[in-house]
């Protein structure tokens, strides 16, 4: 997480910033998923569950599915953010012919 954060702020090249952002987001996703895991638990899919209506489940044997679901959403968000960011970078490149932040700022100042 910190690597990503540093990259977002400290790096000059816009693409590196973007990658930093990606790392940052991915780390949060991993963090979430890790919270759902338990020692010795298995994936949260009920085997042979198709067609059976009532069946007692011992929740402790399965990993918590909720973080997984939430993170699916978060991954979608991350991917769309990334997509928009790349589109922005394309626009910037077309305009300034460079993706280095300091050069862009210098060009803008003129």
């Amino acid at each position, binding site marked *: 997480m910190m690597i990503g*954060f540093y990259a*977002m702020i400290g790096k000059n090249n*816009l693409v590196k*910033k973007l990658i930093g*952002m990606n790392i*940052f*987001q991915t780390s*949060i996703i991993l*963090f*979430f998923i890790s*919270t759902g895991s338990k020692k010795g638990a298995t994936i949260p899919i009920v085997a042979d569950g198709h067609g059976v209506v009532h069946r007692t489940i011992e929740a402790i044997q399965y990993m918590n599915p*909720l*973080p997984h679901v*939430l993170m699916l*959403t*978060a991954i979608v*968000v991350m991917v*769309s*953010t990334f997509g*928009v*960011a790349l*589109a*922005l*970078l394309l*626009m*910037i490149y077309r*305009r*300034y012919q460079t993706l280095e932040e300091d050069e*862009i700022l210098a060009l*803008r100042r003129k």
Partner: protein
Amino acid sequence: MTASPFPILIIVVPLISAFLIILLGWLKKNLCYPFMVAALAVSALSSLAILQEVIHHGILHYHLGNWDPPWGIEYVIDPLNAFVLVIVSVISLLIAIASKKMVEREFPHKVVFFYCLFLLQVTGLLGIVVTGDVFNLYVFLEIASLAGYALIAIGEDGAPFASFNYMIYGTIGACFYLLSVGYLYIVTGSLNMADLSRLLPDLYSSKVVLMAFAFFVVGVAIKMALFPLHVWLPDAYTYAPSSVTSLVAPLTTKVGAYVLIRIMYTVFEPNFSKVAIPAATILSWVAFFAILFGCILALGQKDLKRMLVYVLIAEVGYIALGVGLGNRNGLTGAILHIMNDALMMACLFLIVGAITYKGWPRQIDRFIGLHKKMPVTMAAFVISALSVIGIPPACGFFSKWYLVLGAIDAKQWLFVAVLLVSSLLNAILFFRVIERAYFEPGANERNVQPVKNKAKFIWDEAPLSMLIPTVLLAAGILSVGLLSGTIISEVIQFALPASF
């Protein structure tokens, strides 16, 4: 649980319309604009209906997919929500009406996409306000933010770069928010706001909860552009096209403020912000600097739009100050100011849009003679300016009054001073513009033109589709001020946490 369809209607209509509009644009372009306006009108009407219901029946709940909370996602609407909902939907409707001409002039080949993004942005904002689930809020936050990044990037020269910067900051903010949601989930197992507020008090001493709170506040502060995390705002809003700034400026920061209030006072109890961490105190001091900073930096601006952007930062400071004061009057002032500021900023940025549309440069120095060409627009500017300065009967005065009362109650004389000094600074800012536009020497020649020769109209006003929303907003500024007593007693008073 009520069977009212409005909470879901208000989200679904703009959302589906956003996609339908692309289809429609492919088939028949001319229908896009009416379609968008219709969709937003439905939202606006639903929000008014919701407000009515909430006033009469109390809190509305809507369970998505009929799953009971806390397992399912729930939309909860209490007076605070309903109030902000009305503000967001009505203002976005007015801006949408006004945006047509501006958009067609500035980027004619992308009009349909603009409408689609506009609707998505509004969906996101409305969703943030309506939802009662913290993760759902994150989703809508990102919908709104992404639409915002894209909208801002359509603008002029520096826009893509400014938007990229905004994106970096905004993503950091959203990720902080997501982190805190995660922390809260770990310790409570719930994502529902009402549920959290029940479960959290036992856990207030836990470090995880403290961290979560801290990340929440910082994340929302980035989104709300609270000093010193406002850095993305000036460039992003200045370079964005006028129609976009008019939508985003009044609404995004206010919705961010709403989220702050929700977190500090609904999810976490008010005591938490005062006792566990002195968050409220820190917040009010940060707001103090935000107000000063915004006003002082605005003084140095030559571009009207940039000046208004810094004024916006100061206004966000006012709201944060009210939230941070933590007493009845302060919070009332903050909530009232959410509405007032949204109205003022929408009107002001629309005016900037109108001025640019008519070909005038944005430099204040070049506004000579503006009032002769665009008298109605300038009249609306004067009214909005009076409101920002805090002169009655414009609405800005009333929210300032409550904020000052709150500061006096809290015996924070320095805050009283900053509120009053900023009024004077705002007066300098706006009267500079008014002087230029109305009174600049040479704009009117004495004794030269015989008075009879005024037959020709030298009006060159903005088109009606822009003028009418501007006038409506200005009228709103005047009337809302006088009605603030009613608004408070009917709506805001119930939005305050019970312990106040």
